[in-house]
């Protein structure tokens, strides 16, 4: 395949499409942005799902679809990492596995939102439990995301070429993103406060940072494709 291929560009743009779909799924449709308060009583959680059933069910379709549409984008990133590493490419393999792992959980998050909203006559406690599972599936990917960001950052920074395939600031940006996702690890410990799954530090900061990461990756990759970086030595 030619290095300036349209396919590479399309894959990169898929990231933007997938991100948008996911956002639309979560926010206007499923109304899960910001996430439900983990301290809400069980009856209120269940009523929320009953009241917004259609939105949540459609949102679930978008979230599950978006999770898959991210994969061409990730493949584009992996193509770059492979180019950087060359024949011996452990970090590229690590990246592919970790990211696949992280986005499958997003698929399941969409699935559990769907199941939680599917039958309105389910007992409150059951709906609340399904909701808990969905939110953890949605937020805990901070864990693989952190590792993924470190791997990507290290891979980009290890590029020894005079003109790196991907710019060095992108490597540092990945490391910074990873660090900022760390508070997401702690969500199981808290039901209120800044580190709960709807908190400033465990949700909002990672969400904003992830959005920034996405956009910067797409911009940097498109620039690299444009100057045909993949054809360089």
């Amino acid at each position, binding site marked *: 395949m030619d290095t300036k291929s349209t396919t590479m560009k399309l894959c990169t743009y898929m990231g933007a499409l997938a991100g948008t779909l996911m956002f639309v799924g979560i926010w206007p449709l499923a109304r899960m942005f910001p996430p439900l308060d983990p301290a809400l009583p069980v009856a209120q959680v269940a009523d929320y799902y009953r009241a917004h059933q259609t939105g949540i069910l459609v949102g679930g379709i978008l979230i599950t679809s978006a999770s898959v549409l991210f994969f061409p984008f990730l493949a584009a990133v992996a193509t770059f990492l492979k180019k950087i590493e060359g024949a011996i490419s452990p970090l590229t393999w690590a990246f592919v596995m970790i990211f696949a792992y992280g986005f499958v959980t997003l698929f399941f998050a969409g699935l559990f939102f769907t199941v939680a909203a599917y039958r309105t006559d389910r007992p409150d406690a059951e709906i609340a439990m399904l909701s808990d599972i969905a939110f953890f599936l949605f937020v805990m990917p901070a864990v693989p995301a952190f590792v993924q960001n470190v791997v990507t950052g290290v891979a980009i920074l290890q590029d020894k070429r005079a003109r790196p395939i991907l710019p060095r*600031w992108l490597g540092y940006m990945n490391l910074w993103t990873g660090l900022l996702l760390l508070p997401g690890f702690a969500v199981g410990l808290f039901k209120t406060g800044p580190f709960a799954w709807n908190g400033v*530090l465990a949700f909002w900061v990672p969400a904003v940072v992830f959005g920034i990461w996405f956009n910067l990756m797409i911009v940097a990759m498109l620039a690299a494709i444009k100057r045909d970086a993949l054809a360089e030595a």
Partner: protein
Amino acid sequence: MTTAERRSGGHVPGEEGLWVFIGGDLVVFAVFFITYAVAHRQEYALFEASRRLLDRQLGLLNTLLLLTSSLCMAQAVAAVRRDDRRARPLLLATIALGSGFVVVKTFEYAAKISHGFTLNTNSFSIYYYMFTAIHLVHVLIGLGVLCFAASRFDKAGRMPGGAALIEGSGAFWHLVDLLWIVLFALLYLL
């Protein structure tokens, strides 16, 4: 800074990409500090009472340890630039003092936990543990980077690759010190 550098507009310690990281970290910690200040305002009495449970002496000791390690770091960078053999011992002193910080912090956490002041005790404790822990992760990363830099000295005590690595490591280490200065004031003193 050489005259040439002054004319060309300044010297970037380490490399530019690193400062993307440092700048980002400063922005995020600013968010942390402000979030804390808002919570402090909302629950003033609780935060004041809980703050008094903290061991100010240990906090002071940690601040002095980091300040002194930053001094050694600055000296080490200057020494590398003029091929001074004292660079490596200075870097090792930096690492030792930084490790001291980690040890003190561990004792501090252990003492607090054994007195029943744990992560979820109240909203102040959440901030105390989480912010100091995230800072501690930075300290550990910094120590790792410094150890890596220390391994790059040759037998004559010089750094063959030039000063960029040690400058960059130093910049990150000073960031760690800087963030602690604010955390110490916010959590222990105010």
